[in-house]
């Protein structure tokens, strides 16, 4: 049972450019998605996520074109999301070259979307993305790019998503996102121990130690980060060598 822990760079895309922000606001340009994809494919990323942060209808064709360009560079799995509101939207994203879709706000609004897409494309193609923020003692699910509370508790929503057919959970700590202070280990461990599917941790990564911690105490199956990879602060190969030295199973590219 030597399933490798996955390192997943995330491209937040606005149209045809990669952008980055701190705590979901203050976006800056961070490069061409296809160029970054080619680099990560080469450096040993285990998967790539592309999220359409604008998620507006009129810019959909641009996003689909971006998925096509990114997919052309990859020999690893590609997950794409942002603004997927129907099985039809999901189909167009998968046809453009993605292997999996992420569902977020639209799944909260209409949870049947999870089962519809899971039945049509298989559970392995459906990732439920949960953005969450801590209020008091609870992790509350946030929607619309983190601007609104969904009045749902994150673990309960993760369980419901899996029951409806999600094959993976991508959990983002909005408290940590962009802070570079480390993943939210307690949050990720809570979600991971409550669901039967793989969990991807997101938000707050900077140091190799943060990754080691999320794979051990945080019980994450995969860890996602954006700017530390884009900026070259943390080369993926070095990160994996660090993790391997700690006894964490990772795929070391040849």
């Amino acid at each position: 049972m030597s399933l490798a822990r996955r390192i997943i760079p995330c491209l937040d895309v606005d149209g045809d450019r990669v952008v980055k922000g701190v705590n979901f606001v203050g976006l800056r340009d961070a490069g061409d998605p296809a160029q970054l994809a080619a680099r990560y494919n080469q450096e040993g990323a285990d998967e790539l996520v592309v999220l359409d942060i604008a998620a507006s209808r009129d810019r959909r064709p641009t996003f689909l074109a971006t998925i096509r360009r990114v997919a052309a560079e990859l020999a690893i799995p590609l997950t794409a999301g942002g603004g997927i509101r129907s099985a039809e939207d999901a189909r167009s994203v998968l046809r453009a070259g993605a292997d999996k879709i992420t569902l977020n706000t639209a799944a909260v609004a209409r949870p049947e979307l999870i089962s519809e897409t899971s039945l049509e494309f298989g559970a392995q193609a459906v990732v439920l993305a949960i953005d969450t923020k801590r209020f008091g003692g609870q992790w509350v699910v946030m929607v619309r790019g983190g601007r609104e509370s969904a009045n749902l508790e994150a673990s309960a929503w993760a369980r419901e998503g899996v029951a409806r057919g999600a094959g993976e959970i991508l959990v983002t700590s909005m408290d940590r996102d962009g802070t570079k202070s480390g993943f939210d280990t307690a949050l990720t461990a809570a979600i991971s121990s409550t669901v039967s599917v793989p969990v991807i941790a997101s938000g707050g990564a900077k140091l190799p130690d943060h990754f080691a911690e999320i794979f051990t105490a945080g019980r994450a199956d995969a860890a996602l980060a954006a700017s530390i990879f884009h900026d070259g602060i943390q080369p993926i190969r070095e990160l994996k060598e660090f993790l391997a030295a700690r006894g964490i199973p990772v795929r070391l590219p040849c």
Partner: protein
Amino acid sequence: MKITLLDLGVGNVASVERALERLGAESERAATPECVANAEALLLPGVGHFESLIRVLDERKWRAPLCEAIGRGVPFLGICLGLQALYGGSDEAPDLAGLQLLPGRVRALPPVAKLPHMGWNRLVMKKKSRLLGGIDADAYFYFAHSYAAIEQGQETVAVCDYGGEFVAVLEKENMCAVQFHPEKSGEAGGRVLRAFLRQGA
């Protein structure tokens, strides 16, 4: 050798096409049963539900020409569901018959670990393999499935262990299949596809 892809609308056929293109192989998507019958080499990709794959295969009347071509010695590679389809059937869709080119059934992976089995895993070699020749024993391959061929046969050349062993690579004369996705498995996956192309050349 031109590869004829059986595009059944399940899974990411474009990624298989790109992987073949990177290796300099020519490929086309089958359009009719005749395309399947006259193929120089066949590739059946697929991820998702066993039922979708078998239903579309039958709707398009590809079952008979596919089985005949494999029987005639046409090089064949099945990927993921394309491996599972070779068996008698699958517990994922108990009422549907598989291609029945191999005995036994496809079963659900035991729920002792997280499912789907999704991510990069290693293989345990059981026999000398044509597809895996020259590949590091500790190479990782990308899997995404919840069902698998649990029972091993003469044709099993490598297994994967995830809460128990299942068939990861099988080779029976011209018929080869892998449970992982070589088109998504980086450099190691490219080598598997290259080995398949060499076999048909």
